[in-house]
């Protein structure tokens, strides 16, 4: 079972890493933030699988932290983008 979960963690991470190519292309900031968000959810899924495979229960707390902070970063982006418009006006 552990081997399967481990392999699944690697698989999810590899696929999401391919999504990172989106960061390279852009073109907009929104695309980049989306790619990071996909990496975020994929990373969290990989982390949960990894934690179960290697028997690290604290991985759950790390995942909770990542979810909260990922939302925090996205909101910081939205506020920053609107503020930048206000600065420029």
């Amino acid at each position, binding site marked *: *079972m552990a081997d*399967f*979960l481990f392999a*699944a963690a690697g*698989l*999810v991470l590899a*696929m*999401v890493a*391919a*999504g990172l*190519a*989106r960061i390279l292309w852009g073109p*907009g*900031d*929104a*695309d980049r*933030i*989306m*790619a990071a*968000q*996909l990496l975020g*959810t*994929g990373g*969290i*899924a990989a982390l*949960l*699988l990894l934690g*179960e495979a290697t028997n690290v*229960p604290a991985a*759950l*707390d790390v*995942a*909770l932290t990542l*979810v*909260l902070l*990922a*939302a925090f970063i*996205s*909101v910081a*982006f*939205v506020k920053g*983008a*609107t503020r930048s*418009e206000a600065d420029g006006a």
Partner: protein
Amino acid sequence: MSAALNGLTILAVCAGAFFFLAGTVGLLRFPDTLSRLHALTKADNLGLGLVVLGLLFQAEGLLAALKLISVWLLALLAGATVTQLIAHTARPSGPQA
């Protein structure tokens, strides 16, 4: 019993991995920002949800199960709302519908 639970875990995790694949392909292939957002939210919600579901069959104790479900619910709700906010910045005039 444990074999059946393991089977369910494998099934759900594989399905979850498939949705991550779909999300990645969508993100790479779809032509415009808003349809990419659409692809992304599917991957977010279903991929992570199925992985969480799969791991629930292995969870030891109520607290661990609760944390797993909270991770998914938070990702779901925060993801959906944040995606809408990002859609706003992608189109500064704001969507009309």
